[in-house]
């Protein structure tokens, strides 16, 4: 079998697949992308070497961390909060038969003081881990009614 096209959207994919496919420059673009990747490999989080993409969102009530961790067993996910640092750790068994290896992924995120460390919840669905970090009551935006007399 031969690979014709592969789009794995990570932070490195800046344009939608349709923009680049079927152009005569595809080979050149791939080459340039490869050169860029090797040049920035030290600064950008590597895709498959112990790291994984993380998104952070927030709304009025909570902050949310979404991590792409495909094929990880729920038991193999560890969340830890200490001193305002959230540690996401997961491991996946790779390879079958004689030499299965366990790959461990780890990322740490600094939390703001607003987060209630003891109220953190997490769900895992379709290979994506979602961590809900509730904000402290005092940190939530409040509406104050002012009587104008």
């Amino acid at each position, binding site marked *: *079998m031969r690979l*014709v096209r592969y789009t794995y959207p990570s932070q490195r994919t800046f344009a939608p697949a349709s923009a680049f496919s079927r152009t005569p420059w595809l080979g050149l673009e791939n080459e340039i992308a490869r050169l860029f990747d090797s040049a920035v490999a030290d600064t950008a989080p590597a895709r498959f070497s112990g790291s994984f993409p*993380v998104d952070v969102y927030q709304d009025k009530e909570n902050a949310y961390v979404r991590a792409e961790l495909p094929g990880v067993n729920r038991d193999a996910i560890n969340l830890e909060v200490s001193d305002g640092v959230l540690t996401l750790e997961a491991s996946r068994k790779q390879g079958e038969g004689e030499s299965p290896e366990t790959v461990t992924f780890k990322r740490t995120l600094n939390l703001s003081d607003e987060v209630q460390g003891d109220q953190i919840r997490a769900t895992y669905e*379709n290979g994506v881990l979602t961590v809900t970090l509730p904000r402290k009551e005092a940190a939530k935006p409040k509406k104050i009614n002012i009587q104008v007399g």
Partner: protein
Amino acid sequence: MTVRLPGVAKDGLDISAENGELTITGKRTWSAPDAWTPVYRESNDVSYQLTLRHESVINIDQAKADLRDGILTLTLPKNETVKPRKIAIA
């Protein structure tokens, strides 16, 4: 064959075979609710796409697919005609 497709649910996945090419397209099923403000992004909302040319060495009719926890496992049996065969010498 295994393909990593985090964030793709069964209904966002499309596997098609045409003209000797096998195409796997995975749309992300999840999108942030309106109230959520992105603070920091590393992932992308663009669909996954993988196209492989198989030159009829595999039997597409017998292919099996299984999507679990963001990993797609495709079982593509080889065509009978291309399997290595031992020929006994009479």
